[in-house]
């Protein structure tokens, strides 16, 4: 698969490396030209410097022929809008946005945007961890 990832932070860069190790092709977009250092030496994929909602930047990263698009910049709103562009303008069927705010994640999921909400996931996992603790202090 050819995957474009917007945002080269902790999550974006690790995801890029994972997909590369699985044999996929990857392009990464970040506003900060220094962010590519997160990808480690000898990263075989593309790195494009620019805004994730800029159509020209997205095209330079190859979104027009990508099989999947992931938006994981540090801005929820940037991620939602970038995913809307990838899906609606560039026709990427598999486009997903990382959205920290559960309210916006839910609202835009209802509007047809695939969202992953780490806040909600963490809350559920932490609650489950608490529930699974059987021992109470006596």
């Amino acid at each position, binding site marked *: 698969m050819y995957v474009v990832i917007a945002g080269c932070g902790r999550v974006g860069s690790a995801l890029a490396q994972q997909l590369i190790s699985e044999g996929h092709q990857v392009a990464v977009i970040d506003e900060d030209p220094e962010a590519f250092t997160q990808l480690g030496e000898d990263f075989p994929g593309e790195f494009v410097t620019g805004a994730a*909602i*800029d*159509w*020209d930047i997205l095209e330079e990263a190859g979104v027009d022929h990508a099989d999947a698009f992931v938006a994981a910049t540090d*801005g*929820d*709103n*940037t991620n*939602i*809008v970038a995913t*809307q*562009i990838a899906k*609606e*303008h560039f026709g990427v069927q598999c486009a997903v946005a990382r959205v920290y*705010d559960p*309210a*916006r994640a839910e*609202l*835009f999921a209802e*509007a047809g945007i695939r969202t992953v909400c780490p806040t909600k996931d963490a809350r559920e996992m932490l609650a489950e961890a608490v529930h699974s603790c059987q021992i109470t202090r006596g």
Partner: protein
Amino acid sequence: MSDHEGVKAVFVVIVGGGKVGLNVARSLVSMGHEVILVERRKYRYDLLVEELEEKLLLGDGTEIWVLEKAGIARADLVVAVTGDDEDNLIIAQVAKRKYGVKKVIARVNNPRNQATFDMLGVEPTICATTNILALVRRELPEHKLVHLLTLKRENLEIVELEVSEHSPVAGKAIEEITLPEGALLTAILRGGKAHMARMKAVIEPGDYVLCLVEPGTEKDLIHVMLPEEAPEKVQAEGEPEYLGGE
């Protein structure tokens, strides 16, 4: 709702307390309308709160709970004028989709993002850069057709053309001119005054004419109105993507 100088008061939620948001808020308040201005930056909030008091709300206007606290559910109008286009896009979509706000006005900071606002159906939009460029182009003598206003939803534009002595329509009455399909000559500007385009009115060199056109008609209109010998000065095609129509 109350009446103020015969104008029905509306409730407006403005997001973004920069110069634009503040001055829009001030003007609406002075017109007697009900206003809430949402500002995220604490230092800016502190600066404005003495003047605006309960009309100012500290918070991130792209957060749904902040918008609810501002009273978006009963807003007649939402104005999204932050300095971030992605924020304005989200505010506008949340307002329309979740709260059914009838009218949302959004600011485009970077003209490169105009296409995204259009794609997502966020309109009307205001872009200072685009507006200023359009005005600058109006002052440049080689620009013979200028887009004055674009009504996207209505699929209509108002354009202005300068008539020179070499123009094929110079000296002709309006009823003698065959305009292209989708174009209507509405007014003649002469000596700084506008004249309604009556059938018998004669167009003179130096006049500016205002036309209502459907987008895409500009090239044919230029062909009818402007002299052939200067095709390189024609601006209907190949113009910067963020100016005028698409």
